[in-house]
């Protein structure tokens, strides 16, 4: 193969690079629309559930009294609650994060099962007093506001 003329060579390089980058961009855009895992609140998941098996994240409060360990000793079941008494049952097999307790906030990564139970592959809770998953942080502020609202009702 003979060497190309300089002008053409630069042009070809630019075209090749652009084609590859635009291709990568388009591919990325297409894949991101399908593969990004969306964040759901319990009420959103009830109103408009994601497809069964699609990777999503569910964030809310661990309902007090709902946490139970199944006989195998490693699977737990609990419910995540949100606003308007929305409630989604969750199943998780594994070692729970350190600050995971009833009444605390949690983000569950996983997918909705056919039986309506959210199967979590990973649980994110507060990591330490300095680090809170971002969705949880806002949720806790929200909850604090709600709690303040509820406790001040009688004063009006």
């Amino acid at each position, binding site marked *: *193969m*003979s*060497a*190309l*003329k*300089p*002008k053409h*060579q*630069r042009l070809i*390089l630019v075209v*090749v*690079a652009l084609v*590859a*980058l635009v*291709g*990568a*961009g388009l*591919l*990325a*855009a297409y*894949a*991101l629309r399908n*593969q*990004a*895992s*969306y*964040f759901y609140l319990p009420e959103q998941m009830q109103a408009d559930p994601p497809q069964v098996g699609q*990777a999503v*994240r569910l964030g809310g409060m661990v309902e007090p009294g709902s946490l139970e*360990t199944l006989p*195998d*000793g*490693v699977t737990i079941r609990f419910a995540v609650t949100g606003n308007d008494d929305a409630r989604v049952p969750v199943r998780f*097999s*594994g*070692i*729970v994060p*350190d*600050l995971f307790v009833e009444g605390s906030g949690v983000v569950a*990564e996983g997918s909705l099962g056919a039986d309506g139970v959210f199967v979590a592959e*990973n649980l*994110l809770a507060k*990591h*330490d*007093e*300095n*680090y809170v*998953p*971002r*969705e949880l942080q806002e949720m806790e502020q929200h909850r604090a506001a709600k709690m303040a609202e509820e406790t001040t009702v009688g004063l009006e």
Partner: protein
Amino acid sequence: MIAELGLAALWLAAALAALQLVAGAVAVRGGDPSEMALLTRPAAVTQGVLAAVAFAMLLWLFAITDLSVKLVAANSHSMKPVIFKLSGAWGNHEGSMLLWVTVMALSGALIAWIERRLPERTMQATLAAQGFVALGFYAFLLLSSNPFERLPIPAAEGQGLNPLLQDIGLAMHPPTLYFGYVGLSVAFSFAVGALLTRQVTPEFARVMRPWVLGAWVFLTLGITAGSYWAYYELGWGGWWFWDPVENASLMPWLAATALLHSASVLAARDALRAWTIMLGVVAFSMSMVGTFLVRSGILTSVHAFAVDPERGSFILILLALYIGGAFLIFALRAGTVSEGQRFAIASREGALVFNNVMLSAILAIVLFGTLYPLLTEAFDVRVSVGPPYFNPVGAIFVIPMLIVMAVGPLLRWRQGGLGRISREMALLAALVLAALVLVSLLGDISLLPILGLSLSGPLAVAAFLPLRGRSLRRLPITVWGMVIAHFGIAVALFGMASESAFSQERLAAVQTTGGATSVGPWEIVLESVTPVAGPNWTAIEGKLQARYEGGEPILLTPQSRNFWAPAQQTTESVLVTRWNGQLYAVIGDQGADGRWQLRLWWKPFVTFIWYGGMLVALGGALALIGRVRQDLKRRTATARLARRREASA
């Protein structure tokens, strides 16, 4: 007093960076060497010394735990072991920024002191650019992140350091990455200097190359160490999470890898001039984007220890200033960079161009995936992007790149023609086919691990093919560097594919006395669970007996630790490393029925991931040594020539 001394040194260093910028700029504009030009180099050297003094003062404050300094009070504790007291100096936002600027100033000082190969105007422009970049960081430190700030009333006791960070591997991890980032900032300055003074020459590439190589070695080490840290410290058994912070170190690495290869083409063949400059700008941009993502805490991240959105906007402004400015100069000047040497498509250059384009595409994919959650959040949609996106989409570009990596080094510079290497190509193709058949016989494995396993063997063979027919004794050390780095890629690929294809996991609840379980070839018995205490933590510790295929029992002691300053719980996983893989054990909570949760993995050949990473870094280090030795030889030869000329005159 120490804190004030450090602060004064920092202000002086900032002033000298400004002087360096002005003197360099005047010298470049003035054309012939003016008096100002004489100031640039000394200013750079002094700036380096002063920044080092400031950082030494910070280290000292941490060593003596001076609790009247806000940063020390917030991040240290008198009970902490000394090594972690010192590492606490950079295990936080302000300190790590000071470390960054110190390393940058020292690098600037080094080039100002010894680099004499480029035309003086180019050096002036380079140092001016370096001064400009440094000035931004000084402003950031002094105006919004002063590490030497005093407390009105000294604290009684420090607030400790995040216990997850009390780990020797992690103490070394951020500095390693910062050395990488800083190396890229030097490459960036050279690129700007060369572009401004129209000196995009092979000599420029040779001067820039050691910095790119050094940066690349440090980034490789940093990513490898970071991955291993996340693997054993987080207790999740994974080694790469596509977390924004991990991507923040991967993106500069991808850009630096591309830059390294294009700089080689420019140095050896005087081609890809504008492209190399472009990559120099992109590589530094990526390290700034990385810093921004990590330091601003703008993205949800398991690693986000230092979160402060307000500082994010400052870094964003710096980012816009550096990158915007550099791309503006590039747009204005790229047209003046004349055409390089031409080459055929199927030549060494062609393969390297292909490698560059693929790396850029991968970089784009990682960048889009990392920033996408930020984009959708503007429309109030919360998403996270993980392996289902990165793995398959990345693989589309990684696999062709790896194939060309196998073949490229066999091709000749400039001349086209695959015919000359048809035998080698046939051998590699046969190996890939054989491996594919073998691996698919192994059973139910998903597509990407199959491809990874089948490619890794032939890639390892291909890495050594450039050695055929050459005298191993007389082979330049830089060629060894390439061979070992490419071999390292094959090794790491094998580890990754094996981990994802063959890992076995067991989650079990077992009785305290003699409860048994198994994972893969391992039999595990829980003997006891006892409380233990360390210098600043208490823990429950499980005693496990593990037997590999019924062999001698090995004692494992995973812990669940409670730190008290600050209060936090961590899981301390234990690993048993064999040549053919790792056993990974984590202890969880005790259930209501008294049984303990154990989580166990058997991960065949997982260690190859990090061995591969280390081999890649070793290859880079060898290439660096080779290049620096060549440069030194040439330097003495030139000096001798000059002396001889003087003598004859």
